[in-house]
């Protein structure tokens, strides 16, 4: 049984079982009785984990999505793809490590991968700005996506960012401009695009590589207009109310398909993707292969038409018709 190095508070019952199991497993010559106990504990761990993870609160989902061992773009490139040739630089300002781009092969299918990278070690995290991309990152992404379009290579975007970087340089180099341009561009690229939120889908920084033919998310990812901390800061004047903000924003894989924003949810291994990178990568690969097969068969014009309609439909509003009746467009949660 895989175990997290250090669990979350809400995982305490799981961690307690892990501790007990660890003690038995540490014994040099476990007795028949001990072995039986270990089997029971493993079953209990599975049941407990299933129980806990079946009712995570939105804030707990955010914590899982930010787990330091959660698989990142680079991990999926290693585990789910057969080749990756990184392509650097925006040929304008620099090479943003927060957005990883390059050719990759998924079986025999050539693809262009564009993904946020948070960094595993402290050094890498600092270099990646914890997955917060600068304008040069989006410019790099746009350049590589245009290249992919030119040769009819499908694009796969892995979204995993707390948000686009908020800084002086980022503003000076047009953070708002590049995110707008990127959506504008992606809405018209004549090649299939699959976007998957693998961890954090933080606002404009996420959407900057988030316009595609299929939008998917992992089970414990979230995708939000604002970070729960940011929302709490505005509404309740303190980041400490982030759990409350998470409750009202409806940004988990339970809500987003209902709102018509996410097409598919990819199930995570028991206890979250961070507990089993291989299984998560296998599921992701399976999803990508299946989805690409459908998309590459669609002619580019139809693809663009459908991509437009997909985003065109998003939103919830009322429409008062001429005869005075009111029609509801889009999904609305009941109270």
């Amino acid at each position, binding site marked *: 049984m895989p175990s997290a190095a250090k669990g979350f508070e809400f995982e305490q019952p799981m961690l307690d079982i892990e501790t007990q199991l660890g003690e038995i497993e540490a014994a040099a010559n476990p007795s028949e009785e001990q072995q039986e106990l270990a089997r029971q504990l493993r079953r209990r761990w599975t049941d407990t984990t299933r129980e806990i993870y079946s009712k995570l609160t939105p804030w707990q989902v955010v914590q899982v999505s930010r787990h330091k061992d959660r698989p990142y773009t680079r991990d999926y490139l290693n585990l789910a793809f057969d080749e990756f040739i990184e392509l650097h630089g925006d040929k304008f300002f620099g090479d943003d490590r927060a957005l990883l781009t390059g050719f990759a092969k998924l079986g025999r299918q050539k693809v262009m991968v564009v993904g946020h990278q948070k960094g595993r070690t402290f050094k890498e995290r600092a270099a990646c700005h914890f997955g917060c991309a600068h304008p040069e990152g989006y410019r790099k992404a746009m350049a590589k996506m245009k290249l992919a379009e030119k040769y009819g290579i499908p694009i796969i975007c892995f979204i995993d960012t707390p948000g*686009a970087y*908020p*800084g*002086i340089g*980022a*503003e*000076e*180099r*047009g*953070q*708002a*401009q590049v*995110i*707008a*341009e990127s*959506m*504008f561009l992606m*809405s*018209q690229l004549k090649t299939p695009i699959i976007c998957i939120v693998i961890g954090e889908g933080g*606002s*404009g920084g996420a*959407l*900057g590589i*988030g*316009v595609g033919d299929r939008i998917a998310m992992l089970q414990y990812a979230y*995708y*939000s*207009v*604002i970070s729960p901390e*940011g*929302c709490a800061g505005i*509404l*309740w004047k303190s980041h400490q109310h982030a759990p409350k903000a998470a409750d*009202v*924003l*409806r*940004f988990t894989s339970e809500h*987003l398909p209902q*709102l018509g*924003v996410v097409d598919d949810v990819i199930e995570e291994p028991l206890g979250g993707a961070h507990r089993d990178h291989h299984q998560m990568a296998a599921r992701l690969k399976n999803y990508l292969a299946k989805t690409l097969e459908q998309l590459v068969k669609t002619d580019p014009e139809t693809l663009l038409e459908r*991509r*437009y309609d997909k*985003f*065109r439909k*998003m*939103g*919830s*509003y*009322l*429409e008062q*018709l*001429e005869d005075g009746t*009111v*029609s*509801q467009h*889009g*999904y*609305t*949660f009941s*109270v």
Partner: protein
Amino acid sequence: MAIVDTPKRTNPNTEETKRRGIPEGLWIRCPGCGNSIYRKELEKNLNVCPKCRYHNYVSARERISQLLDEGTFEAYDEHVLPTDPLRFSDKKSYAERLSAEQARTGLTDAALCGLGMIRARRVAIAVTDSAFIMGSMGSVVGERLTRLIERATEQSLPLIIVSGSGGGARMHEGILSLMQMAKVSAALARYHTAGGLYISVLTNPTMGGVAASFASLGDLVFAEPKALIGFAGPRTIKATIKIELPEGFQTSEFLLEHGYIDRIVERFRLKTEIAAAIDYCGKR
């Protein structure tokens, strides 16, 4: 769903529009220079301070009347109305907030869209009003803008969007607000492909998801002087990098210097300059 257009002529100078905008009182303290300015004088001057040229807030209706030829504005999609898809609630519910903002501003949501004439040139125009939930974009703003852009595409009309939004994407509608950025940008991409001319006018403030979508996508981007324009809010940036922000950071002048806007245009020149740009880029 049937789409019914019920164009309504609105008179921008009704009592209703005067309820909001500049604070009540005969005298107004200018945020730019601190001088007390006689209200009538300020209004006569398009709400620009006669002493320091500070560009004060103007409501969407007032903006329309400043830019369009008198009596030519036909509002569209006013019957597209906001709802509360998430059942969002903080101190008060979003539904209550909407009603309160509607009563306070006389607007049904933050964008006023329609067709009209600028010096006899027919245009599609939208204005976001920074007074309505900080001019933020939710489903209604996104839908109204998209319909306007599609209308401009069909009718080959120049498009003008005057942005004023401190709020960006409206958090009360969650992810749906974020997706409006993509929806409107996609509509602009089609409009662009069809050869349409889009003039984006940035006013104080234009931030967040509005700056990071339609406001930045103009063929021409104009800005009023000294407007706050940017992606991340100055407070967020300060909290992240923990150093003082440079003087004039995220102003129109800052953006001009860094190459992101074509022209800084004073309010009283705006109509003339838009008309001139249409003539340069118009269909021959």
